[in-house]
C-alpha cells in the first residue's frame, strides 16, 4: 500500500508540467506587489463582504465549519467547510482579527460539492467565518479559534 502511494507521488512529480511564466518585469512587480482586488484590500469584515457583493446574510446551521478550538500555532489553522444549502455558488473564508479579513473565496460550479478544506493564518484569537452565497441568499457560520503562545523562546 505504502509503495503504491510512493510510486504514485513520484509519478505526479514527473508528470508535472511546469510553466514558470516569469515576465521580464518580475522585480518591479514584486516590489509593487500590492493586491488591488478590493476584497483582499478591505480592513473590516463589512467592507470585505461588501466588495464581494454581500450586504445581508444570516446564520445557518446548514453550513458546517470545522476549525480547531485551539490552534497550537496561528501560522497554520486547518479549516473545512461543508454547505448543505441548496444552490451553493461560492464559499468565502474570513478571519475577523487578521489585518485583512478576506482569506479566500471558492467558486462552486454545478457538479462540484459545496465542500472545501484548506489551512489559514490566524494572527490572534479570532472568529473565523464561512460565508456562503446561494440562489436563496447569503448565509454564514462562525467559529472561535484560540491562538496560543508556545515554545521556550517565544
Amino acid at each position, binding site marked *: 500500500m505504502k509503495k503504491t502511494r510512493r510510486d504514485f507521488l513520484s509519478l505526479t*512529480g514527473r508528470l508535472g508540467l511546469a510553466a514558470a511564466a516569469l515576465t521580464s518585469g518580475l522585480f518591479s512587480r514584486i516590489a509593487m506587489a500590492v493586491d488591488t482586488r478590493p476584497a483582499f484590500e478591505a480592513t473590516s469584515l463589512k467592507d470585505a463582504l461588501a466588495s464581494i457583493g454581500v450586504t445581508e446574510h444570516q446564520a445557518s446551521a446548514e453550513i458546517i465549519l470545522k476549525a480547531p478550538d485551539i490552534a497550537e500555532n496561528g501560522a497554520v489553522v486547518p479549516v473545512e467547510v461543508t454547505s448543505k444549502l441548496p444552490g451553493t455558488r461560492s464559499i468565502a473564508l474570513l478571519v475577523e482579527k487578521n489585518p485583512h479579513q478576506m482569506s479566500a473565496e471558492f467558486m462552486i460550479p454545478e457538479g462540484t*460539492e459545496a465542500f472545501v478544506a484548506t*489551512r489559514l493564518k490566524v494572527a490572534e484569537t479570532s472568529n473565523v467565518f464561512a460565508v456562503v452565497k446561494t440562489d436563496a441568499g447569503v448565509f454564514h457560520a462562525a467559529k472561535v479559534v484560540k491562538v496560543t503562545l508556545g515554545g521556550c523562546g517565544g
Partner: protein
Amino acid sequence: MPDPMRIRAVMMGDLVDVKILMSHVMETGQRKNADGDLVPAHYITEVSATCKDKTVMSAAWGPSVAKNPYFSFRFKGGAKGDKLSITWKDTAGGTRTDEVTIN
C-alpha cells in the same frame, strides 16, 4: 521554476476527492526577516482546476492562506483514468500547472 504540486485525486463513490499540497512561500508582505527587513509580499492569488475541459473549481486567495498551501475539494463527473489539471498564479507573475490521473 516553482516546485511541483503534490496532487492526489481519488474516486470516492461518484465523487473525485482532490487533495493538493503546493510549494509556495505565501509571504504576506508584513513579515520581517532576521535582519529586520520586510519580506516583500509574494502569494498565490488564483487557483483553478480543470477536468475534461470543464472548470471544476476556481478560487481567489489572499496572503492569509497558510504557507505551502493545502487545498481539498470534491467534484462529480470524473472517472478513473481521467486527467485533472491544477493551475496556480501568484503576485509575482509566477504560475505552475500540474496534471494528475484520477485513481
